[in-house]
Structure formats: C-alpha cells, structure tokens
C-alpha cells in the first residue's frame, strides 16, 4: 500500500511541471461527475457553514450576521460544550488505544499461518462493515438492556447486572465496547504490516535466544510503528466523529443525564432539535480545529517514535 502511494506521488510530481495537455484535460473531464459532487455537496456546504457560523441562522428566517458571538458563547458561556467535549474525549482516550491493541492482538493470532486465514479475516472484518450501521446500534441496545442478553448471561453465574445503557455510569462504556468490537479495518492493516516484517529478523533473534516477548517488543512493534501511526491517526479522527451509536442507543437524547452526549450529538441537537443552525455551524468548526490540532500533534510526535525503514 505504501509502495503504491509513493509511486503515484512520483508520477504526480513529474506531470505537475508540464502545462495542461489534452491528456490531463480529458483526465479532468472524466473526473467531472466527482468534481460536481465534491463542489456541490462537500466543498460548497463547508464554505456555507463557515459563513453561517457567524450568523444566527435558524432555518426559517434569513440569517443575520452576529460576528464572533457564537464562538464567544462556545468559549465562555456554554456548559454543554464542556460536558459534551468531556464525553467525546473520554471516548477517544479509551476507545482508540483499546481498539488498536485488540486489533493488533487478533492480527498477530491470524499471522501464525493458520489454515483458512481468508475465512477468519473476512469474519473478523465483518463487524467493521456493519459497525456504523443503525442495525448494529439497535442490536447493541438490546444486548445491554436491563433484561438483555448480557445480563441473562451474567444471571447464569449469579450476577445481577445493571441496566447498562440506561445507567449514566455505564452507558458510555457500552459504546466504547461497541467501538472496540469494530476492530476489523485496523486489524486488516496490521495484518498486512506484519506480513512485511522480514522472517530472517525473527530467525536471527531466535538463534540469539530472544523470548517471544522480546521479539514482539524489539522487532515486531518497532517495525510496525508506521502502521500503528497510520491506524492511530485514522481511528482518532473516526472516534472524534462518532455519532450513530450514541444517537441510536440514546434515541437522540444523549442520556441518561447527558452521559452519552457526544460532541457530534450535541451539535446535531443544536442544529436539528433547537434549530440553532448558526451556533451548530460554529460548533462544527471548533471540532474541525480540534481534530486538525490533534492530527498535527500526531504528525509532529511521529518523528520520535515512528521508524521508517529507510
């Protein structure tokens, strides 16, 4: 994968110096449908939302310019901004590392050269395909309800489980577990990464008498850091954007007591329940900035812990 990206990058640079030829023009022509979609459905609305974030737009009346008032309110006078940020950060902080660790663990098990690997790989990947869907969130709600499957299983060993999703102490953690369960896509990427680690390194280490733990710590993990880095960045962004599970499981309320009120859910409520489109747009832009800062920080830190094989 990295090879393909590098190769195409070189081609881009080589072509970039030339003028627009009929060949590149026809390239753009072929891109037109996508470009129209991108400009009309993505870039356009993004710009409009930037404008709206400086207005009091409420869907029904024309927007009035209010300057930075929305941003000032976010920074100084919105307790729900802070509480929803806290929920989202808790989620990112726990869901991302746990999911990556789990994905790596499964990938290493699958990398042992077992028979029927493609079948297992597909099976383990399945939850990720379904993961963001409404159906899975509904399933999750049933599993963790007061009389759901989880508590029925616990009852067999004599434990009376709480009603997980309707208790503010546990509700967020059911969502973290749901996120971990969708470990498929980082797992596939880890698996590809593990395959690229040269066998002879392990053989040499084995001859030197290195224990499995040492082999993992000294060979596997360092050589895997580019893949870890890639997965961490992608999963962090995904976690910040998480919306569907919380929306379905709390039926849009973020409850109980705002314990699953993700930042994105709060943003949605402001926009579509309370009709404060202007304010919601400002909230969205604050999230963009936060994700950008996080990503920038990851890239800056990468030079200290990511080893590229160069």
């Amino acid at each position, binding site marked *: 994968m990295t090879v393909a990206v590098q190769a195409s990058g070189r081609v881009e640079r080589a072509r970039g110096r030339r003028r627009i030829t009929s060949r590149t023009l026809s390239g753009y022509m072929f891109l037109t449908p996508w470009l129209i979609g991108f400009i009309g459905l993505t870039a356009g609305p993004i710009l409009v939302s930037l404008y709206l974030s400086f207005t009091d737009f409420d869907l029904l009346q024309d927007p009035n310019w209010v300057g930075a008032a929305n941003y000032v309110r976010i920074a100084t006078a919105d307790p729900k901004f802070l509480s929803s940020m806290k929920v989202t950060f808790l989620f990112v902080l726990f869901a991302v590392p746990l999911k990556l660790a789990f994905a790596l663990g499964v990938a290493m098990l699958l990398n042992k050269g077992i028979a029927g690997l493609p079948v297992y790989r597909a099976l383990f990947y399945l939850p990720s395909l379904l993961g963001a869907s409404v159906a899975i969130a509904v399933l999750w709600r049933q599993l963790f309800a007061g009389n759901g499957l989880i508590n029925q299983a616990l009852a067999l060993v004599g434990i009376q489980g709480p*009603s997980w999703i309707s208790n503010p102490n546990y509700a967020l953690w059911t969502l973290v577990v749901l996120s971990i369960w969708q470990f498929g896509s980082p797992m596939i990427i880890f698996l590809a990464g593990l395959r690229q680690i040269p066998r002879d390194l392990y053989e040499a280490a084995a001859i030197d008498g290195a224990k499995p733990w040492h082999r993992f710590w000294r060979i596997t993990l360092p050589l895997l850091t580019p893949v870890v880095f890639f997965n961490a960045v992608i999963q962090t962004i995904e976690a910040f954007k998480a919306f569907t599970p919380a929306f379905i499981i709390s039926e849009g309320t973020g409850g109980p007591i705002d314990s699953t009120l993700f930042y994105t859910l709060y943003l949605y409520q402001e926009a579509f329940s309370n009709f404060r489109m202007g304010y919601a747009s400002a909230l969205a832009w604050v999230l963009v900035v936060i994700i950008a800062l996080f990503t920038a920080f990851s890239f800056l830190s990468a030079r200290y812990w990511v080893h590229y094989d160069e």
Partner: protein
Amino acid sequence: MATLITNRRQMLKMGAALGGLAASGLSLPALAQDTRLRMFWWGSKERADRTNKVNKLYEAAHSGVGINGETLGWPDYWPRLATQTAGRNAPDLIQMDYRYIVEYARRGALLAFDDYMPSILKIDDFGKDAIDCGRVDGKLYGVNLGNNSTAWVYDAEAVKQLGLEEPQWDWSWTQWGEWSGRVAQKKPGYWGMQDAGGVEPSLDCWTRQRGKSLYTAEGRLGFDLKDAEDWFGFWQELRKKGAVPPADVQALDKNAPESSMLALGKAAAISTNSNQLVAHQALVKSRLNMTMQPSGGPGAKPGQYLKPSMLWSISARSKVAEEAVRLVNYYVTDPEAGKVLGVERGVPASKALRDVVGPTLDGQNKIALDYIAFITDKVGPLPPSAPKGAGEIAFLQKRVNELISFEQASVADGAKQFFDEANSILDRG
C-alpha cells in the same frame, strides 16, 4: 471493480438495468394527474394507514387530484419540516402542532385560511374555542384535527389481577402515590405509576392546579422555584419509598410509546395524551383504560385543558392552495373520512361529525371519545402557545429528574438548576 464492466455491451446492459430501476421507483399513476398535493404528518403506522386510506377516498372522489403522503416519527418530523421550509420546498399540507404554530405563522410560512371561509372551509360547528386555537395574531393558520387532553393510561387487567382498585379521576397526587406503592408491594419489579417527574404535561398540570402555569403569556416561566422543588421532591419521595420505578428503569423510557414503562411491563400507569390510548393499546395485550391526571385536591384550579392534538396547516408557498383547503375541509367535516380516521388524531371538533363517528367506534376509540366528553366540564382554558425553547426545556426537565433520581443532585439543587437553565434558554430564545 475491474471485472464489473468489461465491454460496451455490458455497459449498455448495466445502464438499461439502472434505468429500469429508476423507473420502477416512480409512482406511475402520478404522471397522469393535473393537481398534485404533498402531505406531511408525524405519527405511528396506525395513523399512516388511516391517512392513506382517506387520501385514496379523496382521490377517488376528485378525479385529477393526486396526494403524495409522507410521514415520520415526531422527533424526525420537525427537523425535516424546518429544512424543507428553509429550502422553500415545504409540503402543501402540513400537520402542525400547537407548540410550533406561532413560530411558523409569524415567519410567514403558513397560509391564512380566512379568505377560504366559509366558501370552502366550513367549520362553523367547531365552536369558537376549537377554531381559535388555530389563530395567530387574529388570523387562522391551523384547522383543528381533533381535541385531546393529557391522561393517565393504565393497565386495567393487571390492576384487577393484583386485587387493587382502578385509579379514580378525583384521586389526589398523594392518593395516586399510595396506590402506586401498593402495586409495587404486590408485584416485585412492577410499579403503579411511572416516575413522571420528567414528564412535561404532568408538571404543566401540577402548576396550573396551584393557580400558576408552565409559561406565561409573555413566554416566561409561570411558576416559582418553590413549585419546582415541590414537584421534584414529590417524585423523589415516591422513589425513596419504592413506589415508582428506580432511576435506571425509568431511564429506559425514551418518550416513545414503544419504550414507555407500560409497554416495557414496568408500570401499570403512564402519563400520556388521550388520543394515544389507541397507540398504547396496540403495544400491549391486556385491556387499557384511562383517567385524568391526579387532582390538586380541594380548592385547586383545574390542571388540565382541551387542546388541539394537531392541526392542518397549509404552506404559504403552496401552488395548489385552494385544492389543499378543500382537502383540509374533507378531513375535518366529511363523514366518510371521519369514520376512517376515528379518534386516532383526537376527538373531531365538528359536532355533526362527532355524532356520525361516535356510534361507529369500538372499545378503545370509544373510551377516548367518552373521556373527552367526561372531562369537558372539569378542565380550564387553553393556555397560550408555548414559547420558543419549550421543547428544549422539556428535555431539561427529564434530565434534571434523572440527575436527582441517580443521586447526582439533591432536590433543591436540581430544582434550582432546572429553574436557572430554563430561564437562560428562554433568554436566548
């Protein structure tokens, strides 16, 4: 991907298939008609079935008219309506709620019916109150689709099996609470009442019984901090006695009939709207009945009032306004339509229609009709439409009740928080 389309012939086949798919999605009869109406409402499947049936009847009787109906659940309905209105693409017929009519009418999104009365819209026999509830600033923007009120719906069979008496219309809040506790004693894991501390219509009733209100005509809070403390305190007391469901059981209730304490088999009685008896009955096997909100005791003012369960409004931009008004008139006055609709949207405001529909009703529909007749002389006047932000405050009330029930705030702190945050929501508008 690469093998999906390998040559031109396959490409053409794909295209033809896609074209066929698109064509099958169109409703073909639509093409032949001259007047098309778009109709949008919220509600259950039951309501959708009845509404579609009435639309078919209307189409059959008016050749050249076609109606495209669209329906969503309550929480999804309002964002969709607001976005369509913002995009100047609002449906012709809009099912409107008393809570939102002022907002939409003042912003010029709705058509005034006055010019069509009484030439097309013939609703004189509604009586003044049932007409005026659709007026904003003197003009009529909504036509009453049915009267209802709030109520406590209860599982009459379950109560009987437990050997307890059914709750009565003149029971006080305290009597209800004691009854609820007795139910809980008889059957572990089951309670008499739901915890209604987070239910807005019940608080509304409670404040009115004290001679106050949820909101004033000026759109501010109509009650004091002390009232809020008493309210949340009343429910906290019942929770402590184990007379109502504990916090993590009540939190399963997401304000939908499907997740009510009644449907989940956790409580015998829930606070709801009278026209929703039919919807609740569809979810449980045993026979339901209903009665009024608990009474305020001797000397208390009436807590309840009759209100339009919903109204028909017409978009100000409708190009087929006249036909739309005709259809509205059909819904609220025609006997055939009335028989299909029953009291699912509330009890018809037209006396003539009520007289025709009444005898055709069965069990639960009859109860709903009789209930409205029974309470008519026991209710107070309709309060002004709630201010902007009222929906947000209703959510706040539920959250504060959870804060207290999960013991994250005392009654006094919770009430204070409710009062302060509600005021700041109203300030913000």
